Every structure is written in C-alpha cells, then in structure tokens.
C-alpha cells in the first residue's frame, strides 16, 4: 500500500512517498522522517507526487515533526501534492505550519535559498 524510497543529492535528502498513508503505513513514514532527522539532515524534501491518500494518522506524523525541524534549524518542504491531498492539509490548517510547494524545482530553491 505504501512505498517509501530515500535518496540524497547534494546534501538534500528526498523522501519519496507512494501510495496510501493510513494508520498502519504511517509508521513507515514516521520511521523515514525520524531517520533523516537523526542523520542530521538539514534539508529534507518530501516527494508527494505519487501520494494518493493521507489519513489523519499520516497528517499526525507530519505534524509531530514540525517542532523538531524548527528546533534543529532544518528545512522541511513538501512538494507535488495532488489537489485532493493538498485540500486535506489545508482543511486541517497544516499548510500554515509546513512549507508546501508545487514542484521539485521550487522545493529545491526553497531549501537552498534559506540556508
């Protein structure tokens, strides 16, 4: 149901999330993000191009790292969200707390500019 792949290019850590993030699969997303944090990654991108659906458990995972990223002075950017998924973030108000952009290029600019 979920497939998470990680890749790093030039200090930028990209986590690609594919499929559905529900209560069961959100554990893997949680693990992937916490791994990136523990490795000291300062620029983390989440590729949501293939993210079909996110449940409140998945939103909870993103929510729980907001403070951690702020504390460690890291950049955390989501990109490529479908309209539907973006809508879910908006309704909850999570778009006000996270950096969400349309494309990977924008995301790369965001993380490179600000550090």
């Amino acid at each position, binding site marked *: 149901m979920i497939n998470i792949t990680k890749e790093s290019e030039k200090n930028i850590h990209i986590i690609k999330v594919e499929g559905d993030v529900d209560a069961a699969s959100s554990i893997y997303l949680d693990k992937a993000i916490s791994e990136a944090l523990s490795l000291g990654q300062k620029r983390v991108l989440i590729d949501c191009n293939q993210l079909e659906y996110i449940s409140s458990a998945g939103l909870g*995972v993103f929510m729980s790292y907001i403070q951690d990223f702020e504390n460690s002075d890291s950049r955390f950017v989501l990109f490529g969200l479908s309209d539907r998924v973006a809508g879910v973030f908006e309704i909850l108000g999570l778009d006000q707390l996270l950096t969400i952009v349309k494309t990977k290029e924008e995301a790369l600019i965001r993380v490179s500019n600000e550090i």
Partner: protein
Amino acid sequence: MYKFLKPVTSHLPDIRSFGSHLNWIVLLLVNLLIIVSLRHELITPELRNWAPHLTLNMLLVGLLFWGRYQIGPVDRPSFLPLLIKLCTLTGVGVLVVLFLEAIMALFSGSRLVSDPFFATMVYSLEVLAGGAVLTGLLIGFKRLILFEKTRLMMITWRLFEYALVTTTVLSLFNIQFQSLGYNIIIIGLSGLGILLSVHLKWVGYLDFRQKVQALGVLLVQLVCLLIFAFFMYFYAADAHLLFHAVDNMLLVVLLIFALIATTFSVLVIFFNLPTSSVFEKKLEDLNGIKQLQQSLRKRQSEADLYQLLLQGGLKATDAQWGWVAIQREGDELRTHQPDELPAQSISSLIAAISDAQMQKWLRGTSATGRKKSYYLLPVQHPVYKSALVVPLRIQETLCGHLVLLKNVPEGFNKDAVGIARLFAEQTCLSVENLLLLDEALRSERYQEEMAIARRVKASLLPDSICCNADCQLAVCSQSADDVGGDYYDAYRLDEDRVALVVADVSGHGSSAAFTMSQLKGVFHSLVPQGLSCSEFLLQANSALSRGLGRTTFVTLVYGVLDRRSRTFTFVRAGHCPVIHYSQKSGRLSQLGGKGMGLGLLRNNSYQEHIEEQTIAYGPGDALLLYTDGIIECRNAAGEEFGQERLLQHFGALAAQPQHSAQEVCTQLQEALADHAGLQQIQDDHTTLVLKFS
C-alpha cells in the same frame, strides 16, 4: 449375580489348556489308529500304503488350523517373542524325538523293541512330534513373511498353501521317495518356499541387540530342524518300519520350507548386523523430528526449539559442536550454543572458516549473496576440520543459520546434510507456528481492546441532544471498528443560546477513545464559562495540547446558535467546513475560512490561525456539520464519496421544505450506504443537520 459369574471366568483358562491337552490326546489316539490300521490283518496291502499317510495328513492339516488360531498376526515389537516361541516348540519336538530314541536304544536288546509294530508306533509318535513342530513353524513364518505384505505376496502364499493341499492328496497315491514325480513336486514347492522366504522385511525392524538374540534363537532352531531331517533320512531306508515319513510329501515339504526359511533368516540377520546401526540411526532421526513436532504442541519457547535443533542436528550428523544464530529484523544477532556441551567462543570459530564472505554473513554483518540451501566449508581449526552451514528461513525470510562442526575434513555426507536440513526446516516451521500463535493471541487481545474502545466511544456520546425551539436538530453517527473517534454534543448556555460541537479525533482504537474522553471533559468544563467561540478554541487547544499524544490532534467545529439574533456563530478548528443552505437564494455555501486543528500548534501563536464566523439564518435554511469520514468513505472501486456528492445530496434534500432534519440526516446516510455498497465503513462518520423554521 456377580458371585455366579466369577467362577465361570476363572475357569476359562482351564478350558483353554484342556484344549491343548485335547490336542495331544487326539494325537495319541490317531497314532494308535495308525498302528491298529497297520497291524490289522484285515487291511489290504494297498490300503496299508496310503492309510497312515492319510491319517497323518489329516492330523497335520488339523494342526495347521489349530496353529493359525494359536499364532496371531505379528507387529514390530512381537517379532522376537514369536521367534522364541517357535524355537521353544522346535526344541521340545526334538527333545521328544531324542527321548523316544534314547528309550529305544536303551531297550534295543529286548523283544518288544525289535517288534516292527512297536518300532513303528514309536516312530510314528516321533513323526507326529516333528509334524506338530513343522506346522507350528509354517504358521509362524507365515506371520513373519506376510508382515508388510503386498498383494503379490498374498497370492504367492495362497498358491503355496494350495500346493500343500495338493501334495496331501498326492501323497495318497503312494509316490515313492526320490522317484521322478516326487522330486519334481518337491523341487517345485521348494522353489516356491524360497520365493516366499526371501521376503524378510521384519528383519529390518530389529535393533542390533534383538538381531543378535534372534540370530541365536534361529541357529538353535536350525540345528533342531537338521536333527529332524537327519532322523527322517536315517529311517527312510529302515525295512523294519511299516511306513516311512519321507514318503509323506506334505511332511517333507514342510521340513524343507522350515529349513529354507530358517536358513534365510539366519543369513539375512547375519548380514544385516553391521547395517542395523544405520537403521537405528534413521529411527533416531525420525524420533528427533517427532520430538521437534511435539515440542510445538507443548508450546516450548523459541530458545528451546533451537536447543532441540542443535541436539538433533549434532546427533544426526555425528558432529562435535555447533551453534544456531538468529537475527530478526531490527534486532541483534542472537546465538544459541548447545546446552549439554562446553561453551566455546563462536567468533574464533567463525574466524577459522576460510571464506571471507561467509564469515561476514555468519557474524551478521552482511547478507549472503548466494542463495543455496546449505554450505559445506573447510575449517582451519585445531579441532574442527569441516563445517556445515544451513541457512534458516522463517516466514520466507532469511533470519539465521545453523552451523555444525566436525573433526574430520569433508565430514558431512549427503545424508547428514539432508537430515540437518530437515531438522532446520522443521524447526523453522515450528518457530513459524509459534510466531503465528503469538500473532493470533495478539490479534485476540487487539479485538478485545477494540471492543472496549467501541463501548467507551459509545458511552461518551450524549443520549439526547438539546436545541432551540426555532430549529430541528438531527444527528446520525456511525462508528467504525478500529479507526477514528467522532464526538458531538450540545449544551444549553441560556434561554436563547445553545452551544454545539462536532469533532473528530485522530488515532484509532483505545487511544482515540481516550482522546475523545479528554475532549468531552474539556468541552463540558469550558462551555459553562460562556467564552466566545475563538476563546473557547484557544482554551481547548491549550488544554488538549498538554494531554494529546505526539501524533494526535483533534479537529472540530464549535458554534453557538442564538435564537434572538437568529445567527450561528462558529469557529472551525481544522475541521470540514460548515455547509449552509439558504432557502431564500436556494444556494449552498461552504463556510471554510481560517482554521487549524487542536494540538497542531502547542503554543500561544494558535490564535493567529483561527477565524470566528457568523451566519444569519432565515426560515427554511439548513446547516450541515459533518466529519471527514463521510467524504472519505470509499466504495469497492476505491472511489471516495467526496465533497461534491455530499453537497449535491444535501442541497437536494434541504431544498424540499417537507423534509424534517431527521429525514435529511437519514437520507444522507442512505446515500452514503448506497455509495459504499458492501464495503465496510473504514472510519467513523457523523452528520449533524439543523433545519430552521
């Protein structure tokens, strides 16, 4: 009654022993009959030739039937007792013969002994003793040979029996000893006897000790049979006697068969002696496997299973030492050494294995590139010279290995590898079963937890809900099994104002139920304070942030209905927008606006992210408050109910003035059920409908 019955049962053995006595009495009587028939002058010489044989044959056939009744079918544990029984029978027969011979020798000078009739009588007694022994042996060997019988075996044996009956008839025709016809029949029957005697499957089931014992017993029996043969041959040419046993074909065939069967058994057991240890070993291996299987039923721990694997593997392959290493996902490599042997340093043993890649794998630092089911490796160690490594796969994932060490180079043959692999597979299967059992137990506990959560969730929802007089309020709420926690409630603030809340708690199971109860507590403690909507939200966020789990949040709509101003003032905390149907314009509007879930921002900046909204309602207007379980409800094709469909249905239902709030609510649920089809609901969903008059 009982007293009457008891003597009868106690007498039963006597009757049975009487039966065997009867047998001997009949034997003697028949013997006398033979003698009388021989002696009587009335009997013609032709009659004299076949009458004794006929009586003897009838007696032998009678003995055969009696023997069949006496010696039942045998199974593995009763081979040796049967052989001893047969040997005892033979021994007794020989003793009778020798005893009679001794008497004859003692009184050789007397007139009575030299009398042909008396000599014949004694001779026939001896022949009868021999006959009894030979029929006993025939039945005994039949039981042994037909152990694990095949159809072919049964047919051959049947043929042999018919042939024996035929010889009984033939012997009446007075075929002379060593005549052509006689020899042909004897050779034919002997051939059949050999064919049957080679079927000695029972030998394989004796262990070494039993084989040695059986060998001794059978050798004694062979000697006894040779004495019989010698005795028959010795008297074959004695002109004194009125009839000769060798002329009785049945007796001769029985003797030949007994000799062949005994000789073959002796030879086969003798040559099987060295291989019996192999057979015993196989049995031991089988027992090991059985033990392993039984251990599951006893619910032994995983560590016990690995010990069994080690013990079984070491014994089956004759290895001197070994270990089992298990590494589960995300876990350390755990090694198990044999309990019964002195502990050794595994890392130094791994270092002695001359294969760098294998060393890495055994240390658990790298996955093996090759995917073989076993590895045979040379070892450079003062004691151990060769190693067998068997990878262990549990639930189809490689999770460890069994290593066995031997003190000779290339010490593991194909058989040893096979049995070690079998042990390994069996252990993995047992461990797998153990894990599945654990899982089943966990799942049961989970189900229980879910049931509790469901009960808690249901008990937290209000039984009835209050509302103002100028509007109808209806709520439909359905709870999913494990996910979500929807909450709704109402509170009358004063005569004109009622506070409403519809909320959705993230998380699932019991954690959602606990969050729900927190929420209810927060709601009921804050509402009576008469706070403004945004103030309420701020306080609620602050209260919940302290109690919620790391990934848990709550979304809700909190609003106040005011009858006097005919307004609905509300705030949206990250919850689905409120839908307003205006009768006047006939249009629907979604009231989104700024908002953020409770627990997302756990500091004072929360208030920047929320927005209080007020709508004025007119007669015939309707409001819909709902949770995201509705729009996210999927059908079998994975298609969501969606916002559009909700708006469409609600718009159509609310536009009809005759529909009450309850009808609107119920029909919305029906539309949702139609969409979902047979799919189980995945999340809680709640609809709260307000219809104003």
